[in-house]
């Protein structure tokens, strides 16, 4: 018997690696931006296309938001430059790359 593949569809799925997937298991609110309440994989209310043009931003405090949502808040005097979740001074963290899933082995 010979199988001939006539055509095929590639399907890809993407997800931001927020680094705290385990902690959010079972929490329905876990995967939404705390400011606009839209899923991280969606985009902030000011954008039309999700993905690299509407990235996430990480704080040293470990909280994650859509970058546009967070910057809009931090830009107001009322924010006192604090994280909206824990009121600690907002310090943008370097993207935490999970070695097991993301980084290619370096020579």
């Amino acid at each position, binding site marked *: 018997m010979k199988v001939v593949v006539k055509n095929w569809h590639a399907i890809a799925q993407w997800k931001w690696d927020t680094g705290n997937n385990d902690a959010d298991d079972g929490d329905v609110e876990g995967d939404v931006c705390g*400011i*606009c309440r*839209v899923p991280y994989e969606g985009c902030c*209310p000011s954008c039309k296309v999700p993905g690299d043009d509407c990235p996430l931003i990480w704080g040293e405090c470990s909280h994650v938001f859509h970058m546009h949502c967070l910057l809009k808040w931090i830009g107001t005097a009322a924010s006192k430059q604090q994280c909206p979740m824990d009121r600690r001074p907002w310090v943008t963290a370097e993207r935490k790359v999970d070695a097991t899933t993301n980084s290619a082995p370096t020579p």
Partner: protein
Amino acid sequence: MSTNCRRRLIRDFKRLSTDPPGGVSGSPCPDNIMLWNAVIFGPADTPFEDGTFKLILTFDESYPTKPPTVKFLSRMFHPNVYANGELCLDILQNRWSPTYDVAAILTSIQSLLHDPNPNSPANAEAAQLYRENMKEYVRRVRATVEESWLDPDEQEKMKEDGEDGNAS
């Protein structure tokens, strides 16, 4: 005109409907999503128990960067509620965070009924009675609980008749 705020309010409404916190309810006006009516049930084991206190929340386009204005429509006797129904509550002023939603606002107000803060009084008389004469405080609050069951027109009529709740 920005729709960001409306989109967020729809999400707030969805959350409030699917996962409602106990003792509060709220919904946007059918013809204006920027205007919400809400009810807070007086928490058990407080003088406010069994009250159905109506509020109105007014949002503008800057929500959730800025908080809504929140006002009691029902007459209140509470150390942190002004005579016009406006509240003195830090999270609606200088401690606002854009992560709060309508559910969070309503539950915060509910807990304010539970734990008044007599140090920043909006109603000096209520604050004083709360500190010094609990029995009279409870009596005055109970009067507002009974009034809260009337609809707004009836409450208005009671005010016109000169019954401001001070007389028992």
